[in-house]
């Protein structure tokens, strides 16, 4: 059973507009959420994260919103740029004690930003 779901396989937006990528989760024990960005033939790179005790975290053009009651998070990119075109993965973690920081990833959303 998929615990982290990204229901949109792809998203296309115009340069300068807002990109909104969505992620839903089912495990209420998840306490930390991350977004990764991946270009073809490269490893994923960390973008932004949010703890479950917060509802918003901002870093430059990137903002992540967390709605715990809905078990939903979203990544907003404003303004979108052609270089943002990549696959975006949502990931969630449940702390299990010790140093067990395993992540559960969604299937990814391919964002295309058109010039």
């Amino acid at each position, binding site marked *: 059973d998929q615990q982290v779901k*990204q229901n949109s*396989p792809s998203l296309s937006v115009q340069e300068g507009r807002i990109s909104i990528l969505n992620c839903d989760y089912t495990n209420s024990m998840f306490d*930390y959420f*991350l977004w*990764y960005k991946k270009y073809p*033939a*490269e*490893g*994923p*790179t*960390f973008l932004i*994260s949010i703890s479950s005790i917060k509802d918003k975290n901002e870093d430059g053009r990137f903002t992540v919103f967390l709605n715990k009651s809905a078990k939903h998070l979203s990544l907003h990119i404003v303004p979108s740029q052609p270089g943002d075109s990549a696959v975006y*993965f949502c990931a969630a*973690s449940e702390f299990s004690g*010790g*140093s*067990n*920081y*395993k*992540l559960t*990833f*969604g*299937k*990814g959303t391919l964002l295309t930003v058109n010039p």
Partner: protein
Amino acid sequence: DVKVTQSSRYLVKRTGEKVFLECVQDMDHENMFWYRQDPGLGLRLIYFSYDVKMKEKGDIPEGYSVSREKKERFSLILESASTNQTSMYLCASSHGYEQYFGPGTRLTVT
């Protein structure tokens, strides 16, 4: 900057061969992970290790084994490669929640 390196970017092997994928990190991280990425399936965890000589199965361990003899090095072993193991293999390391990934190895089994 954290650096995670993988021994090969591209690899072509034949069915039945034993395949070794090596991963090295330079940040003294306790945790190391092996994933595979396939179109439409996202990143799936194969094995992970939270200490030297310690290993735990991930979501898809069948057909794979791992070795962690030194803290900085985590190896993935395909005991007898099969065509359904053709994939992009990604190694990662972490101290806390944030994982740092290597560039990946594109493995093709023919």
